[in-house]
């Protein structure tokens, strides 16, 4: 009985964590956050998965829990691709916003760069513009930072193509002008420390 209630709480906790994450989560991360053993977490994730697939009450959710790339992540179901496309086209523009361009510039010159570094340099939370750049294929994930586990981003070949250059080295240097990129990245690091 106690076991059961416990399970239910973990179920909701995992649902909450999955909801705020947009990267696949591995069992280790979930263990650290919830303090529960790996096997209990795995069993609960499977239960969540089944629940979203309608195996409990016949109610198939608009989203699903998938186990991909060594982690668990919420995805929409492919049968809703049409509505999602219709939704995405509403706000879609052919040009990048100023905010997206700024984030792209930071990543291009500091790469690999994490979201928090982009945010520090721009002075505002940049999560959503980084997501836009990812969706647009201008940047890609490139491993994680050793200590923080934060995802690092680099620009893609498609970005080089759009800019008409062959490699990142061909980007015009900005270091001799005013504060160098090195300085900027040092500054960003020093600001990491509280």
């Amino acid at each position, binding site marked *: 009985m106690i076991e059961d209630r416990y399970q239910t709480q973990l179920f909701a906790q995992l649902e909450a964590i999955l909801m*705020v994450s947009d990267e696949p989560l591995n069992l280790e991360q979930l263990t650290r956050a919830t303090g529960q053993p790996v096997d209990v977490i795995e069993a609960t994730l499977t239960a969540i998965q089944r629940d979203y697939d309608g195996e409990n009450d016949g109610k198939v959710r608009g989203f699903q829990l998938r186990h991909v790339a060594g982690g668990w992540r919420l995805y929409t179901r492919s049968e809703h691709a049409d509505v999602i496309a219709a939704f*995405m086209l509403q706000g879609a523009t052919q040009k990048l916003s100023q905010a997206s361009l700024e984030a792209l510039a930071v990543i291009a010159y500091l790469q690999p760069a994490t979201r928090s570094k982009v945010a520090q340099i721009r002075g505002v939370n940049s999560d959503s513009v980084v997501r836009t750049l990812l969706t647009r294929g201008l940047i890609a994930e490139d491993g994680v930072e050793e200590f923080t586990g934060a995802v690092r981003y680099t620009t893609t070949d498609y970005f080089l193509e759009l800019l008409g250059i062959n490699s990142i080295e061909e980007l015009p240097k*900005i270091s001799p002008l005013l504060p160098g990129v090195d300085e*900027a990245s040092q500054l960003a690091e020093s600001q990491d420390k509280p």
Partner: protein
Amino acid sequence: MSQTATQGLTDEVAEEHVGFELALTNFSGPFDLLLSLIARRRMDVTEIALAEVTDEFLAYVSTLETTEEVLENSTAFMVVAATLLELKTARLLPAGIGDAQEEMTLLEERDLLFARLLQYRAFKQAAEMIKHRMQTQATMVPRQGAPEPQHANVLPELIFDLSPEDFAALAQDVFTKFAEEPEEVGTGHLHAPIVSLAEQVALMTMRIKQAGKLTFGSLISDANTTMVVVVRFLGLLTMYRDRLIDWHQDEPLGDITVKWREPHD
């Protein structure tokens, strides 16, 4: 008393004067300090023992370091301190001696100060409420969803017309802004044009000398703003002090006549 870290002026003051008898906390402005002094005496803001609070306020203000960084804020403290001091002085003087007009002005000034203090208190409470709401809301984290890779191809093709040089210039802007946090003293809130006292005195000297005698009304007839009127009046006061002019007024609120004073031999 705990010393929570806030910014700017108050931090510095608190650090430099640890152990000072007032047991300073951080204040975000003169009104903040006034309110806290009043609160410490457990008094309603409407029943302040003005003289006592004034003493404490002045003691605090005297600890402010007028370095460049805190100058602006210190000035704000000084304005309130000066007002309080004036009110205190008025109370200490025997009643009935002062000019009735002057007393009225003091009363108005005091009411204005307390009205502003009450207004500030209201917004301070509103800020507290906003903070609590934000804290409660912060326990609920919103979904930051994004289209998944399989959806990306429905987006219209990207138009990217920046040259590598444009792009570099943009990057430079971003890094520059980051490196030099704007720290200039804002003057955006000052809209009154500056009127120079020296210029106005020179102008009036010329006019009065020429005419020999002029009314104040005609001296300000071409003044296009209140500020010019005020500065010309101040100019006349300095000219009177320097014994350059004489003036007289036949009746209260009547015309003031200004005369150039011939230098004595």
